[in-house]
Protein backbone atom coordinates (compact mmCIF):
# COMPACT_ATOMS: atom_id res chain seq x y z
CA UNK A 1 0.00 0.00 0.00
CA UNK A 2 1.46 3.35 -0.98
CA UNK A 3 1.70 6.19 1.47
CA UNK A 4 -0.93 8.11 -0.51
CA UNK A 5 -3.39 5.23 -0.23
CA UNK A 6 -2.79 5.03 3.53
CA UNK A 7 -3.58 8.72 3.77
CA UNK A 8 -6.75 8.37 1.74
CA UNK A 9 -7.82 5.51 4.00
CA UNK A 10 -7.24 7.68 7.01
CA UNK A 11 -9.51 10.36 5.50
CA UNK A 12 -12.21 7.75 4.85
CA UNK A 13 -12.45 7.29 8.59
CA UNK A 14 -14.68 10.39 8.50
CA UNK A 15 -17.39 7.99 7.24
CA UNK A 16 -19.27 5.59 9.51
CA UNK A 17 -17.96 2.02 9.45
CA UNK A 18 -20.99 0.68 7.58
CA UNK A 19 -20.51 3.16 4.76
CA UNK A 20 -16.79 2.35 4.58
CA UNK A 21 -17.55 -1.35 4.37
CA UNK A 22 -19.95 -0.71 1.48
CA UNK A 23 -17.99 1.88 -0.51
CA UNK A 24 -14.48 2.16 0.97
CA UNK A 25 -12.59 -0.07 -1.47
CA UNK A 26 -14.41 1.39 -4.44
CA UNK A 27 -13.70 4.94 -3.32
CA UNK A 28 -10.02 4.17 -2.79
CA UNK A 29 -9.98 2.92 -6.38
CA UNK A 30 -11.54 6.16 -7.63
CA UNK A 31 -9.23 8.33 -5.51
CA UNK A 32 -6.12 6.47 -6.66
CA UNK A 33 -7.21 6.62 -10.33
CA UNK A 34 -7.63 10.37 -9.97
CA UNK A 35 -4.27 10.94 -8.29
CA UNK A 36 -1.46 12.05 -10.54
CA UNK A 37 1.86 10.16 -10.54
CA UNK A 38 4.16 10.99 -7.65
CA UNK A 39 1.50 12.55 -5.42
CA UNK A 40 2.17 11.81 -1.76
CA UNK A 41 -0.54 13.83 -0.02
CA UNK A 42 -4.23 14.03 -0.90
CA UNK A 43 -5.09 17.42 -2.39
CA UNK A 44 -6.64 19.73 0.21
CA UNK A 45 -9.82 20.03 -1.88
CA UNK A 46 -10.21 16.22 -2.06
CA UNK A 47 -9.49 15.89 1.64
CA UNK A 48 -12.05 18.56 2.52
CA UNK A 49 -14.64 16.97 0.24
CA UNK A 50 -14.17 13.54 1.85
CA UNK A 51 -14.36 14.82 5.41
CA UNK A 52 -17.40 16.98 4.61
CA UNK A 53 -19.24 14.13 2.86
CA UNK A 54 -18.25 11.64 5.59
CA UNK A 55 -19.50 13.87 8.38
CA UNK A 56 -22.67 14.59 6.40
CA UNK A 57 -23.37 10.84 6.28
CA UNK A 58 -22.79 10.57 10.03
CA UNK A 59 -25.00 13.57 10.79
CA UNK A 60 -27.64 12.38 8.35
CA UNK A 61 -27.73 9.00 10.05
CA UNK A 62 -28.04 10.64 13.45
CA UNK A 63 -30.79 13.10 12.54
CA UNK A 64 -33.00 11.36 10.08
CA UNK A 65 -31.93 7.87 10.79
CA UNK A 66 -33.49 5.40 8.38
CA UNK A 67 -35.99 3.05 9.97
CA UNK A 68 -34.36 0.05 11.55
CA UNK A 69 -31.18 1.62 12.93
CA UNK A 70 -32.79 1.93 16.33
CA UNK A 71 -32.13 5.64 16.82
CA UNK A 72 -35.73 6.67 16.38
CA UNK A 73 -36.99 4.04 18.80
CA UNK A 74 -34.29 5.05 21.25
CA UNK A 75 -35.40 8.69 20.90
CA UNK A 76 -38.99 7.76 21.78
CA UNK A 77 -37.93 5.79 24.85
CA UNK A 78 -35.46 8.44 26.04
CA UNK A 79 -38.12 11.14 25.46
CA UNK A 80 -40.50 9.25 27.74
CA UNK A 81 -37.81 8.85 30.43
CA UNK A 82 -36.94 12.54 30.29
CA UNK A 83 -40.59 13.63 30.41
CA UNK A 84 -41.08 11.32 33.42
CA UNK A 85 -38.09 12.94 35.13
CA UNK A 86 -39.51 16.44 34.55
CA UNK A 87 -42.91 15.29 35.83
CA UNK A 88 -41.33 13.72 38.91
CA UNK A 89 -39.40 16.91 39.74
CA UNK A 90 -42.59 18.97 39.35
CA UNK A 91 -44.66 16.58 41.49
CA UNK A 92 -41.98 16.68 44.19
CA UNK A 93 -42.10 20.47 44.22
CA UNK A 94 -45.87 20.53 44.27
CA UNK A 95 -46.03 18.12 47.23
CA UNK A 96 -43.50 20.24 49.17
CA UNK A 97 -45.42 23.42 48.32
CA UNK A 98 -48.77 21.92 49.32
CA UNK A 99 -47.42 20.67 52.64
CA UNK A 100 -46.00 24.14 53.38
CA UNK A 101 -49.37 25.60 52.47
CA UNK A 102 -51.14 23.14 54.73
CA UNK A 103 -48.74 24.17 57.49
CA UNK A 104 -49.98 27.75 57.30
CA UNK A 105 -47.54 29.30 54.78
CA UNK A 106 -49.65 31.44 52.44
CA UNK A 107 -47.21 30.73 49.53
CA UNK A 108 -47.72 34.39 48.74
CA UNK A 109 -45.94 35.96 45.78
CA UNK A 110 -46.41 39.32 44.04
CA UNK A 111 -49.24 40.03 46.49
CA UNK A 112 -51.25 36.94 45.54
CA UNK A 113 -51.83 34.12 48.02
CA UNK A 114 -50.86 30.71 46.69
CA UNK A 115 -49.20 32.06 43.54
CA UNK A 116 -45.97 30.19 44.35
CA UNK A 117 -47.92 26.95 43.86
CA UNK A 118 -48.81 27.96 40.31
CA UNK A 119 -45.30 27.05 39.12
CA UNK A 120 -45.14 23.40 40.29
CA UNK A 121 -48.85 22.91 39.53
CA UNK A 122 -48.48 24.04 35.91
CA UNK A 123 -45.37 21.90 35.41
CA UNK A 124 -46.99 18.85 37.02
CA UNK A 125 -50.05 19.12 34.79
CA UNK A 126 -48.19 19.61 31.51
CA UNK A 127 -45.55 16.89 32.02
CA UNK A 128 -48.08 14.36 33.27
CA UNK A 129 -50.10 15.10 30.13
CA UNK A 130 -46.99 14.58 27.97
CA UNK A 131 -46.27 11.26 29.71
CA UNK A 132 -49.91 10.19 29.33
CA UNK A 133 -49.96 11.05 25.60
CA UNK A 134 -46.70 9.17 25.07
CA UNK A 135 -47.88 6.09 26.97
CA UNK A 136 -51.21 6.10 25.10
CA UNK A 137 -49.28 6.06 21.83
CA UNK A 138 -50.32 9.55 20.68
CA UNK A 139 -46.98 10.58 19.23
CA UNK A 140 -48.07 13.82 17.58
CA UNK A 141 -50.04 14.88 20.65
CA UNK A 142 -46.95 14.21 22.75
CA UNK A 143 -44.91 16.52 20.49
CA UNK A 144 -47.52 19.28 20.71
CA UNK A 145 -47.86 18.92 24.49
CA UNK A 146 -44.07 18.87 24.95
CA UNK A 147 -43.91 22.11 22.94
CA UNK A 148 -46.49 23.52 25.35
CA UNK A 149 -44.20 22.21 28.12
CA UNK A 150 -41.36 24.34 26.73
CA UNK A 151 -43.66 27.39 26.93
CA UNK A 152 -44.71 26.50 30.48
CA UNK A 153 -41.05 26.18 31.51
CA UNK A 154 -40.31 29.56 29.94
CA UNK A 155 -43.38 31.00 31.72
CA UNK A 156 -42.31 29.80 35.15
CA UNK A 157 -38.82 31.23 34.60
CA UNK A 158 -40.50 34.59 33.88
CA UNK A 159 -42.73 34.20 36.95
CA UNK A 160 -39.77 33.51 39.21
CA UNK A 161 -37.68 36.29 37.75
CA UNK A 162 -40.51 38.62 38.81
CA UNK A 163 -40.56 37.10 42.33
CA UNK A 164 -36.87 36.38 43.09
CA UNK A 165 -34.49 36.65 40.12
CA UNK A 166 -31.90 34.31 41.70
CA UNK A 167 -34.41 31.46 41.73
CA UNK A 168 -35.40 31.84 38.13
CA UNK A 169 -31.99 30.60 36.96
CA UNK A 170 -32.46 27.34 38.86
CA UNK A 171 -35.14 26.40 36.34
CA UNK A 172 -32.84 26.80 33.33
CA UNK A 173 -31.98 23.09 33.07
CA UNK A 174 -35.66 22.15 33.00
CA UNK A 175 -36.24 24.58 30.14
CA UNK A 176 -33.34 22.95 28.26
CA UNK A 177 -34.64 19.45 28.92
CA UNK A 178 -38.13 20.46 27.79
CA UNK A 179 -36.68 21.42 24.40
CA UNK A 180 -34.76 18.13 24.29
CA UNK A 181 -37.92 16.10 25.10
CA UNK A 182 -39.80 17.86 22.31
CA UNK A 183 -36.98 17.11 19.88
CA UNK A 184 -36.81 13.46 20.93
CA UNK A 185 -40.54 12.90 20.41
CA UNK A 186 -40.34 14.79 17.11
CA UNK A 187 -37.62 12.54 15.63
CA UNK A 188 -39.22 9.32 16.89
CA UNK A 189 -41.43 7.81 14.21
CA UNK A 190 -43.68 5.47 16.13
CA UNK A 191 -45.51 5.37 19.45
CA UNK A 192 -43.42 4.84 22.57
CA UNK A 193 -45.11 1.51 23.27
CA UNK A 194 -43.86 0.05 19.99
CA UNK A 195 -40.41 1.53 20.63
CA UNK A 196 -40.34 0.12 24.16
CA UNK A 197 -41.41 -3.23 22.75
CA UNK A 198 -38.49 -3.11 20.32
CA UNK A 199 -36.11 -2.19 23.13
CA UNK A 200 -37.04 -4.96 25.57
CA UNK A 201 -37.02 -7.71 22.96
CA UNK A 202 -33.95 -9.95 23.00
CA UNK A 203 -32.94 -8.50 19.62
CA UNK A 204 -33.27 -4.96 20.97
CA UNK A 205 -29.66 -4.71 22.11
CA UNK A 206 -28.94 -1.98 19.61
CA UNK A 207 -31.97 0.06 20.70
CA UNK A 208 -31.05 -0.39 24.35
CA UNK A 209 -27.49 0.76 23.64
CA UNK A 210 -28.84 3.86 21.93
CA UNK A 211 -31.22 4.60 24.79
CA UNK A 212 -28.16 4.56 27.06
CA UNK A 213 -26.24 6.91 24.76
CA UNK A 214 -29.17 9.33 24.37
CA UNK A 215 -29.90 9.26 28.11
CA UNK A 216 -26.25 10.08 28.78
CA UNK A 217 -26.51 13.04 26.40
CA UNK A 218 -29.72 14.23 28.10
CA UNK A 219 -28.09 13.96 31.54
CA UNK A 220 -25.05 15.81 30.22
CA UNK A 221 -27.22 18.66 28.93
CA UNK A 222 -29.09 18.84 32.23
CA UNK A 223 -25.85 18.83 34.19
CA UNK A 224 -24.19 21.45 31.99
CA UNK A 225 -27.20 23.80 32.31
CA UNK A 226 -27.24 23.36 36.10
CA UNK A 227 -23.51 24.05 36.22
CA UNK A 228 -24.09 27.13 34.08
CA UNK A 229 -26.72 28.56 36.43
CA UNK A 230 -24.46 27.84 39.42
CA UNK A 231 -21.62 29.73 37.77
CA UNK A 232 -23.82 32.66 36.75
CA UNK A 233 -25.36 32.94 40.23
CA UNK A 234 -21.94 32.83 41.87
CA UNK A 235 -20.54 35.51 39.57
CA UNK A 236 -23.53 37.71 40.16
CA UNK A 237 -22.92 37.62 43.89
CA UNK A 238 -19.13 37.56 44.07
CA UNK A 239 -17.97 38.80 40.69
CA UNK A 240 -15.52 36.79 38.59
CA UNK A 241 -12.49 35.64 40.59
CA UNK A 242 -9.56 33.49 39.44
CA UNK A 243 -10.80 30.57 41.54
CA UNK A 244 -14.32 31.11 40.28
CA UNK A 245 -13.20 30.99 36.65
CA UNK A 246 -11.23 27.79 37.28
CA UNK A 247 -14.06 26.02 39.06
CA UNK A 248 -16.49 27.19 36.38
CA UNK A 249 -14.26 25.74 33.66
CA UNK A 250 -13.95 22.46 35.59
CA UNK A 251 -17.71 22.31 36.19
CA UNK A 252 -18.63 22.98 32.58
CA UNK A 253 -15.95 20.75 31.07
CA UNK A 254 -16.40 17.70 33.28
CA UNK A 255 -19.51 16.27 31.61
CA UNK A 256 -17.84 16.54 28.22
CA UNK A 257 -14.67 14.91 29.54
CA UNK A 258 -16.67 12.09 31.14
CA UNK A 259 -18.84 11.58 28.07
CA UNK A 260 -15.91 11.86 25.65
CA UNK A 261 -13.92 9.41 27.77
CA UNK A 262 -16.84 7.01 27.77
CA UNK A 263 -17.19 7.15 24.01
CA UNK A 264 -13.42 6.67 23.62
CA UNK A 265 -13.49 3.65 25.93
CA UNK A 266 -16.39 2.14 24.00
CA UNK A 267 -14.47 2.70 20.77
CA UNK A 268 -11.36 0.97 22.10
CA UNK A 269 -13.48 -1.88 23.45
CA UNK A 270 -15.30 -2.26 20.13
CA UNK A 271 -11.96 -2.40 18.33
CA UNK A 272 -10.60 -5.05 20.71
CA UNK A 273 -13.75 -7.14 20.36
CA UNK A 274 -13.80 -6.66 16.60
CA UNK A 275 -10.19 -7.81 16.20
CA UNK A 276 -9.83 -11.16 14.52
CA UNK A 277 -13.21 -10.94 12.80
CA UNK A 278 -11.57 -9.74 9.63
CA UNK A 279 -13.15 -7.21 7.31
CA UNK A 280 -16.85 -7.49 6.73
CA UNK A 281 -18.07 -6.55 3.30
CA UNK A 282 -21.48 -5.05 3.83
CA UNK A 283 -22.64 -4.43 0.28
CA UNK A 284 -25.23 -6.60 -1.38
Amino acid at each position, binding site marked *: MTILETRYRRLLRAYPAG*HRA*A*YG*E*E*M*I*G*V*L*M*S*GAEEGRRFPSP*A*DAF*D*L*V*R*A*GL*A*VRLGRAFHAPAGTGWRDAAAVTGLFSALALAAVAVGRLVTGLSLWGGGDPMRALGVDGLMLADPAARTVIWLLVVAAAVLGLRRTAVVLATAGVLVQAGVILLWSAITPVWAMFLLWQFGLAIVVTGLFAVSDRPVRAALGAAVRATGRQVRGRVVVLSAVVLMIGYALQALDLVVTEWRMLGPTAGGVLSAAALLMSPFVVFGGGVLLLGVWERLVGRGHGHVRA*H*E
Partner: protein
Amino acid sequence: MREPTFLVLTALAEEPRHGYAVIEDVATMTGGRVRLRAGTLYAALDRLRAEGLIEVEREEVVQSRLRRYYRLTGAGERSLATETARLRSQATIAESRLRLRGTQFGGATA
Protein backbone atom coordinates in the same frame (compact mmCIF):
# COMPACT_ATOMS: atom_id res chain seq x y z
CA MET B 1 -32.37 17.92 -8.27
CA ARG B 2 -28.91 19.35 -7.69
CA GLU B 3 -26.41 19.64 -10.49
CA PRO B 4 -24.04 16.79 -9.48
CA THR B 5 -27.04 14.45 -9.22
CA PHE B 6 -28.31 15.49 -12.62
CA LEU B 7 -24.87 15.04 -14.16
CA VAL B 8 -24.36 11.62 -12.58
CA LEU B 9 -27.71 10.43 -13.94
CA THR B 10 -26.81 11.84 -17.36
CA ALA B 11 -23.48 10.01 -17.31
CA LEU B 12 -25.24 6.73 -16.51
CA ALA B 13 -27.95 7.33 -19.14
CA GLU B 14 -25.47 6.48 -21.89
CA GLU B 15 -24.13 3.22 -20.47
CA PRO B 16 -23.32 1.60 -17.12
CA ARG B 17 -20.18 3.22 -15.72
CA HIS B 18 -17.95 2.77 -12.68
CA GLY B 19 -17.16 5.64 -10.33
CA TYR B 20 -14.06 6.99 -12.03
CA ALA B 21 -15.65 6.73 -15.49
CA VAL B 22 -18.57 8.85 -14.18
CA ILE B 23 -16.12 11.53 -13.02
CA GLU B 24 -14.38 11.57 -16.40
CA ASP B 25 -17.61 11.60 -18.39
CA VAL B 26 -19.02 14.47 -16.33
CA ALA B 27 -15.80 16.41 -16.86
CA THR B 28 -16.02 15.82 -20.63
CA MET B 29 -19.72 16.70 -20.81
CA THR B 30 -19.18 19.99 -19.00
CA GLY B 31 -16.01 20.87 -20.88
CA GLY B 32 -13.98 20.48 -17.67
CA ARG B 33 -16.16 22.88 -15.68
CA VAL B 34 -17.35 20.19 -13.26
CA ARG B 35 -14.87 17.69 -11.90
CA LEU B 36 -16.72 15.66 -9.24
CA ARG B 37 -14.71 14.76 -6.19
CA ALA B 38 -14.99 11.31 -4.61
CA GLY B 39 -16.92 12.48 -1.54
CA THR B 40 -19.50 14.34 -3.62
CA LEU B 41 -19.79 11.52 -6.17
CA TYR B 42 -20.41 8.81 -3.59
CA ALA B 43 -22.86 10.97 -1.67
CA ALA B 44 -24.86 11.19 -4.91
CA LEU B 45 -24.43 7.49 -5.83
CA ASP B 46 -25.44 6.30 -2.34
CA ARG B 47 -28.55 8.49 -2.32
CA LEU B 48 -29.55 7.56 -5.88
CA ARG B 49 -29.19 3.89 -5.02
CA ALA B 50 -31.31 4.32 -1.91
CA GLU B 51 -33.96 6.06 -4.01
CA GLY B 52 -33.88 3.27 -6.56
CA LEU B 53 -32.83 5.56 -9.44
CA ILE B 54 -29.64 3.61 -10.11
CA GLU B 55 -28.46 0.10 -9.30
CA VAL B 56 -25.26 -1.91 -9.34
CA GLU B 57 -24.81 -3.66 -12.66
CA ARG B 58 -21.64 -5.63 -11.99
CA GLU B 59 -18.38 -5.62 -10.10
CA GLU B 60 -14.90 -6.08 -11.43
CA VAL B 61 -11.47 -6.17 -9.88
CA VAL B 62 -8.95 -4.31 -12.01
CA GLN B 63 -5.34 -4.20 -10.80
CA SER B 64 -6.57 -5.34 -7.38
CA ARG B 65 -8.99 -2.42 -7.21
CA LEU B 66 -12.72 -2.92 -6.83
CA ARG B 67 -14.79 -1.35 -9.62
CA ARG B 68 -18.55 -1.26 -9.30
CA TYR B 69 -20.56 -0.43 -12.41
CA TYR B 70 -23.83 1.46 -11.92
CA ARG B 71 -26.74 1.64 -14.33
CA LEU B 72 -29.87 3.76 -14.59
CA THR B 73 -33.11 2.02 -13.52
CA GLY B 74 -36.54 2.67 -15.06
CA ALA B 75 -37.32 5.05 -12.21
CA GLY B 76 -34.00 6.80 -12.81
CA GLU B 77 -34.83 7.22 -16.48
CA ARG B 78 -38.20 8.82 -15.64
CA SER B 79 -36.64 11.06 -13.00
CA LEU B 80 -33.96 12.27 -15.43
CA ALA B 81 -36.61 12.88 -18.11
CA THR B 82 -38.73 14.95 -15.71
CA GLU B 83 -35.75 17.03 -14.62
CA THR B 84 -34.63 17.54 -18.22
CA ALA B 85 -38.10 18.78 -19.19
CA ARG B 86 -38.12 21.15 -16.21
CA LEU B 87 -34.70 22.57 -17.09
CA ARG B 88 -35.69 22.92 -20.74
CA SER B 89 -38.88 24.84 -19.98
CA GLN B 90 -36.96 27.19 -17.68
CA ALA B 91 -34.26 27.70 -20.27
CA THR B 92 -36.92 28.42 -22.89
CA ILE B 93 -38.55 31.08 -20.72
CA ALA B 94 -35.17 32.71 -20.02
CA GLU B 95 -34.28 32.60 -23.70
CA SER B 96 -37.52 34.21 -24.88
CA ARG B 97 -37.27 36.97 -22.26
CA LEU B 98 -33.69 37.69 -23.26
CA ARG B 99 -34.79 37.89 -26.89
CA LEU B 100 -37.58 40.28 -25.91
CA ARG B 101 -35.13 42.53 -24.06
CA GLY B 102 -32.93 42.52 -27.12
CA THR B 103 -35.74 43.87 -29.34
CA GLN B 104 -37.20 46.30 -26.76
CA PHE B 105 -34.11 47.93 -25.42
CA GLY B 106 -31.54 47.14 -28.02
CA GLY B 107 -29.44 45.27 -25.50
CA ALA B 108 -28.63 45.78 -21.82
CA THR B 109 -27.91 49.27 -20.60
CA ALA B 110 -25.24 49.96 -18.02
